C-alpha cells in the first residue's frame, strides 16, 4: 500500500498539458468538471438567493417598500430563471453525477469526456446570457420564469435573450443526460450488473432519461415563443388563430418532468447517506431502483396539474389529478424504505445524516402539500397563491436543496481530502432548518387565506406572516454563510481526511481521498450487494 501512496497524485494536483486556469477549464476529467459546475452553480445560487432576499425585504410591509413594482416583477422572474435553469436542474446531476457516477460504477471517466467539458462550456454561455438580461432592452423579463403567452409575446423586456439562454442551458442538460445514460450502459466495471449498481447511479439514470427526452420539447417551445416575438407566427395569439393555452401545455410538458430531474438525484443521495450512517443495507433495494424509473415515467403524464384553472375540460382535469396521485406513490415508497433502513441501525448523526433527516421532514411536507395542489377541488382555492410558493420551496429547496447540502458534506472528504468542522456543520444545518421553516411555513397559511403569488403588495392582514418569513429569510441566509464558510475553511485548513471516514460501502470509499486522475489504480472489486457493512 505504501508504494501506491508514493505514486498517488490527486486529481487536484495533477499537471497535464495545460497550465493554470486552463488546466481546469480545458480539463476533460469528470472530477474537475464536477468542481467547475460546483463553483459556478454555487455562485449562481448566491446571486439567486440575494434576489430572493431583496424580494423578502420588499414584502416585509404592504405597498412599495424598497423597489418599484416593475423591478419586483423582474426580481421574481430572474430569481426563478437562475434558480431553476442554472441551479436546481443542473445542480445534483452535473456536480455529484459527474463526480460520483464513474466512481460508483468503477469507471475511469464518463463515456464522452470531451462532450462533458462542452456541456460545462455551454452551461456557462447560457448562464452569461441569462445574467445579461438584467441589463438589456427595457430590463429583465417580467413574465415569471414560466413565460406565459400572451404577456411574454408582447412585453418590451428582454424575453428573447432570456429564452435563448434557457435554450442553451437546456442543450447542456440534454448532453449531460446523454453522456450519463451511455456511461451507465457501457462503462460499468466487470461483474457490476444493473441490479448490483448503487442506488445513486440508478437515480442519475432515471433523471438522465428525463433530461434527454423532455428538454427538447421546451426547446422547440421557446423557439416558438421567440419567433412569435420576432415574426408574429401566431401559434399562441388568438387574433391570428393561435391559442395561449397551447404554450402552457408545451411549457409544462417539459417543466413538470424537470422537477423530477431535480428530485431524483436528490433521493439518490439520501439513499446513499442513510445506509452509511446506519451501517445497514438499504431496505428494499429493488423497490427504490424501480420506483426511480416509475417516477420518471409517470412524471411525464401529470403536467396538466399546473393548469387546472386555465379552462381545460373536466375530463382532462380528472385525468391529470388521478395521475398526480399515482406519481406520489413511488416517492412515498422511498420514504418508507429510508425509514425502514434506519430501523435497528447503528446510527451516527454526522452532518450528512442530519441533513438527510431534515430532508425527509421537509420532503414530506412538500410532498403532501403537493397532494393538496394535485386535487382539483382544493387546487382552485390555492392556485397562484403563496401556498404554491411554499409547496415548491419545500420540495425544491427543502428537498433537493437539503439533499445537495447533505451530498456536499458527505462527499467533501472524498473530493478534497480534508475534513470540515463537524460541530459547526451540524449547527449550521439546524439553523438552516429553523430559518427555512420560519421563512416558508407561514406562506402556506396566508396562501390558503388568499395571499396571491408574484404580488409585491398585499392586504394588511397578511403582514404578520410576511414579517416572520423575512426574519426566517435572514436566519436562513446567515446559516448558509456559516455552512459555506465552514466548508471553505475545511478545504483550506481542515484535517486530512482518510479514504473512508464514514465507513461507506460503495466504490468511491475504496480509493484514496482525493482520488487520482484515473480513479482506480487497481481494478475495482465489485460486490454482490453494494451496501455491505463490516
Amino acid at each position: 500500500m505504501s508504494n501506491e501512496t508514493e505514486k498517488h497524485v490527486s486529481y487536484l494536483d495533477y499537471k497535464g498539458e495545460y497550465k493554470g486556469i486552463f488546466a481546469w477549464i480545458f480539463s476533460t476529467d469528470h472530477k474537475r468538471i464536477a468542481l467547475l459546475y460546483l463553483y459556478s452553480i454555487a455562485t449562481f445560487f448566491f446571486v439567486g438567493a440575494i434576489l430572493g432576499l431583496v424580494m423578502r425585504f420588499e414584502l416585509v410591509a404592504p405597498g412599495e417598500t424598497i423597489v418599484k413594482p416593475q423591478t419586483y416583477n423582474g426580481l421574481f422572474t430572474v430569481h426563478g430563471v437562475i434558480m431553476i435553469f442554472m441551479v436546481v436542474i443542473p445542480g445534483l446531476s452535473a456536480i455529484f453525477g459527474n463526480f460520483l457516477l464513474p466512481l460508483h460504477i468503477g469507471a475511469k471517466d464518463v463515456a464522452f469526456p470531451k462532450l462533458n467539458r462542452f456541456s460545462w462550456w455551454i452551461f456557462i454561455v447560457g448562464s452569461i446570457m441569462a445574467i445579461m438580461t438584467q441589463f438589456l432592452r427595457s430590463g429583465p423579463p417580467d413574465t415569471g420564469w414560466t413565460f406565459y403567452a400572451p404577456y411574454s409575446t408582447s412585453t418590451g423586456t428582454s424575453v428573447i435573450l432570456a429564452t435563448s439562454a434557457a435554450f442553451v442551458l437546456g442543450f447542456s442538460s440534454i448532453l449531460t443526460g446523454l453522456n450519463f445514460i451511455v456511461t451507465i450502459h457501457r462503462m460499468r466495471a466487470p461483474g457490476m450488473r444493473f441490479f448490483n449498481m448503487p442506488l445513486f447511479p440508478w437515480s442519475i439514470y432515471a433523471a438522465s432519461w428525463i433530461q434527454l427526452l423532455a428538454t427538447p420539447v421546451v426547446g422547440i417551445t421557446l423557439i416558438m415563443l421567440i419567433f412569435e416575438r420576432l415574426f408574429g407566427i401566431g401559434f399562441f395569439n388568438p387574433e391570428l388563430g393561435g391559442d395561449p393555452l397551447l404554450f402552457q401545455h408545451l411549457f409544462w410538458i417539459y417543466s413538470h418532468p424537470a422537477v423530477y430531474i431535480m428530485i431524483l438525484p436528490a433521493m439518490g443521495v439520501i439513499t446513499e447517506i442513510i445506509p452509511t450512517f446506519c451501517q445497514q443495507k438499504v431496505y428494499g433495494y429493488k423497490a427504490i431502483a424501480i420506483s426511480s424509473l416509475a417516477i420518471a415515467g409517470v412524471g411525464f403524464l401529470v403536467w396538466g396539474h399546473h393548469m387546472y384553472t386555465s379552462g381545460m375540460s373536466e375530463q382532462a382535469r380528472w385525468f391529470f389529478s388521478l395521475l398526480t396521485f399515482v406519481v406520489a406513490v413511488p416517492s412515498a415508497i422511498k420514504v418508507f424504505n429510508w425509514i425502514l433502513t434506519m430501523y435497528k441501525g447503528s446510527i451516527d448523526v454526522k452532518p450528512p445524516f442530519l441533513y438527510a433527516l431534515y430532508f425527509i421532514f421537509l420532503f414530506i411536507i412538500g410532498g403532501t402539500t403537493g397532494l393538496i395542489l394535485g386535487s382539483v377541488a382544493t387546487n382552485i382555492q390555492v392556485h397562484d397563491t403563496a401556498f404554491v410558493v411554499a409547496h415548491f420551496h419545500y420540495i425544491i429547496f427543502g428537498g433537493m436543496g437539503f439533499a445537495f447540502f447533505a451530498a456536499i458534506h458527505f462527499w467533501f472528504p472524498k473530493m478534497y481530502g480534508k475534513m470540515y468542522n463537524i460541530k459547526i456543520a451540524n449547527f449550521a444545518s439546524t439553523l438552516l432548518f429553523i430559518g427555512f421553516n420560519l421563512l416558508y411555513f407561514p406562506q402556506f397559511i396566508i396562501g390558503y387565506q388568499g395571499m396571491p403569488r408574484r404580488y409585491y403588495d398585499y392586504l394588511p392582514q397578511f403582514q404578520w406572516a410576511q414579517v416572520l418569513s423575512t426574519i426566517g429569510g435572514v436566519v436562513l441566509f446567515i446559516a448558509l454563510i456559516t455552512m459555506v464558510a465552514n466548508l471553505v475553511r475545511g478545504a483550506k485548513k481542515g484535517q486530512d481526511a482518510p479514504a473512508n471516514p464514514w465507513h461507506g460501502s460503495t466504490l468511491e470509499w475504496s480509493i484514496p481521498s482525493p482520488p487520482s486522475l484515473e480513479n482506480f489504480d487497481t481494478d475495482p472489486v465489485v460486490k454482490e450487494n453494494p451496501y455491505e457493512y463490516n
Partner: protein
Amino acid sequence: MSNLENHPHVHRDDEAQKLGMWLFIFTELLLFGGLFLVYSIFRAQYPDNFHESSLELSVTLGVINTVILLVSSMSVAISLTAVQKSNYKLAKLMLLLTVALAMAFMVNKYFEWGAKFHHGLYPGSELMHLLDRGHHLYFSLYFFMTGLHALHIVVGVILLLISYVKITKGKIQSDNFMHLENAALYWHLVDLIWIFVFPLLYLIS
C-alpha cells in the same frame, strides 16, 4: 502520460458511439415532435384553411425534393458499405453524391421560399398578417418546419463532409467506421423528418 490529462482513457467503444447517436436522434425526434403536435392541433381546428393554403405549394417540387433525399439516403448507405468493403474511392464518391443531392435540395428550397418572398409572403410580412387564422398558421408552420429541417440538412452535410475528410486521412477504415455510420444515421434521420413533413404540408390538397 502527459496526454492523459485530457484523454485519460484512450479506449474505443463503437457501441457507446452508436448508442450516443441514437439517443441524440431521440432528442431530434422530440424537437420536431413539438412542431408536429402544433401542426396537428391547428389542422384539426382549421382543416379547410389548411387544405386551401397547401394549394399554394408546388407538389412537383416537393416530390422532386423527396426523391432527392431518398436517393441521398441510398448513396450514403452505399458509402458505408463501400467503406466496410475497403472500397474507399467509391465511399468518397458516394459521400460527395450525397452532399451534391443535399445541395440540390437546398437550391430547390431556395427557389420555393424565394417565390413566396417575392409575393410578399414571409414570416412577419404585412401580407402574412392579412391572412386569416388557419391560413396564417399554415404558412407559419410551413416556414418554421421547412426552415428547421433545412438547418438540419446543413448540420447533416457538415457531418458528411467531416466523414469525407476522415476517409481521406485514413481515420475511417473498414474496421473503424463508426463516425461514418453515425453520420449516415443522422442523414437518414434528416431524410425521415422530410418524409413526414412533405405529405403533411404538400399532400393535403
